[in-house]
């Protein structure tokens, strides 16, 4: 594949179950060299070759940016997903050879901040693992509020408490513990930046409260975990390359385009970076837009689609690809 980022040939050096849903994977370079340095919040796109099918999923790097002997990611098993996480959990073993992209950071720290206030929900903790490691090494000022369903599903909660003690506050859904968000957001020193990563509803809530309480938009940073969703199969005509393709239930439109030998640019594969934006030439049916890139107006117009996460239901769709 010629587009996207530069690739790294890696070998899985360790697979560590973290809890009943989450497993951690360690990668080293096959040639034994160091991996590229990265910044806290960066992700890599992991290529999963599963028989005939290739999936490319982004995962946040969660190790310390100071240690480039290995990259680590944590994958939450999603039994209703498209199968990428199940592939990682079931098929990837120590010694498996894989390909990952160079790191890309779409959720970087604002290094001007006097304080970094972090809000994590569930598996949204992973980018903060790297960011807190980076900040702690530089003597940076941060505070992490982490909500998980239960203590046993609090991925890395113990480790974070051990590393950073009072700078980490945990909230458990099963004990009805809730972040007192308005109070938290109202009591921060000037120059604080806010970072939020977790389920969509949480991100929306935090952004809405921050705006209502007068936080300038440029101090509020968020990363959506918009994994492509499965859906009904559909057919697409690629006008420029003169091909008609079928997108199956477990495939994203972008993956189906790539499988046909057409390589649109991409970076995040999660509907936020804008790289794979594609013009619609004609359609007869309904779009299922799942991205965070296009405006509502774009969504309504039916003129554009983000093939990494969005789908289509209807009789015909012709794309400018």
């Amino acid at each position: 594949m010629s587009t996207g980022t530069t690739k790294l040939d890696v070998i899985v050096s360790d697979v560590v179950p973290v809890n009943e849903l989450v497993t951690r994977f360690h990668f080293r370079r096959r040639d034994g060299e160091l991996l590229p340095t990265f910044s806290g919040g960066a992700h890599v796109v992991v290529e999963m070759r599963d028989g005939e099918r290739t999936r490319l999923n982004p995962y946040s790097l969660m190790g310390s940016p100071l240690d480039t002997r290995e990259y680590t990611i944590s994958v939450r098993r999603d039994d209703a997903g498209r199968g990428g996480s199940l592939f990682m959990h079931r098929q990837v073993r120590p010694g498996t050879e894989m390909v990952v992209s160079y790191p890309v950071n779409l959720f970087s720290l604002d290094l001007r901040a006097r304080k970094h206030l972090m809000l994590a929900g569930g598996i949204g903790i992973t980018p903060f693992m790297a960011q807190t490691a980076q900040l702690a090494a530089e003597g940076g000022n941060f505070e992490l509020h982490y909500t998980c369903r239960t203590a046993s599903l609090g991925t890395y909660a113990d480790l974070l408490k051990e590393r950073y003690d009072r700078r980490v506050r945990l909230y458990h859904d099963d004990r009805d513990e809730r972040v007192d968000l308005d109070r938290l957001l109202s009591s921060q020193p000037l120059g604080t930046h806010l970072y939020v990563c977790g389920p969509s509803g949480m991100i929306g809530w935090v952004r809405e409260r921050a705006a209502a309480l007068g936080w300038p938009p440029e101090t509020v940073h968020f990363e959506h975990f918009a994994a492509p969703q499965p859906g009904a199969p559909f057919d697409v005509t690629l006008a420029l390359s003169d091909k008609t393709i079928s997108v199956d239930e477990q495939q994203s439109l972008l993956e189906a385009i790539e499988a046909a030998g057409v390589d649109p640019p991409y970076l995040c594969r999660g509907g936020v970076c804008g790289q794979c934006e594609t013009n619609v030439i004609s359609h007869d049916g309904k779009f299922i837009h799942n991205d965070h890139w296009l405006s509502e107006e774009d969504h309504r117009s039916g003129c554009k689609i983000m093939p990494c996460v969005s789908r289509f239901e209807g009789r015909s769709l012709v794309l400018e690809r």
Partner: protein
Amino acid sequence: MGITFRKETFRDDFTFRNSPEHIRRFPFPFHEDSYMYAVNIEPHVVGPKGSVLQNLIDVDEHYVAEMQDRALVLAEDPLRCQSLPHMTLAGWDLLELLMEQQALAYPEHFTLARDGDRWRWINRPLGIDDSFTFGDVSTLPYGPMEYITRQSQGDFCILDQRDGNLWMDAGMVTTQADWSLDFDIGMNFFEWHAPVPLAHEKGIFVRALKFLTNIQQGKPARRLNWTMTINPRLDTSPENYHKWGPDRATVTPENVGDKVHLRVELQSFWRLPRSNAIVFPIRCYLIKMDELVMQPKWARRLHRVIRDLPEELATYKGLTRYRATLVEWLSKLDDGSATSPGFGPD
């Protein structure tokens, strides 16, 4: 075989010259007989042997003299080098990039030895041998950006990336074509490009910003830009306009070949790994008309480009005072025959 560094000046007696090899490798910026802005960005990959693209960070015969000129500029005006407080990490990123690239490409001149965060840097042309701790500013005589850019040809701007924009938050700028870091520091991409004519209307900056904010680690990009300078002066800054501005009134038909220089900037763009900032090296190449016209194709093409340049661009590039004299001089070297496509000499 190492580079033979020239002893020369970019001020006062202006002894700067290009050797015959350096004339041939000059990055002539016109691929056709006319010029208009375009988003002429391409991947910054290694180019042909013997070209300025043979190495991604180019060191040439002017290295030592340029570093001496930079030291003179900084002694008179320390504000040519500035780094806002949040940019120190990016400075370390840049130090690593430049040390690694220079040591890799020119092992006879530069050596980098790394043992964890204990580093030793040997720069033979400048007689430097320093051991320091990577990440610890107290172990270097200057901040990391200033330290390494006092030893690297070209200007360097470090652009912080946030809010979907790029911010000029650090830089070393002493060889600039009439712009000022001290004026632009802290500005965003649209603010510092505000004075450029025509390009805004063409939507060029919106597209360029979109491209730049997506530059990936391990995939640098580059473009060429150009202007003209009277006398081989590196420091044509607004701060020193009183020193070089009047030179433009000194061009006569007799001295065009010696005084008028084509000034080409090889601009590259690199994602820095720890800071997620972009570094923007602006490497300046100068060539006097007498040297340039030794390639007949370049002489013909430059004549046509300067003759047909839109008035706004000629004004922006500061050519107005001597444009007619230059075009007249070049016209004698243009027999009207066709030029081959591409940048290189025939």
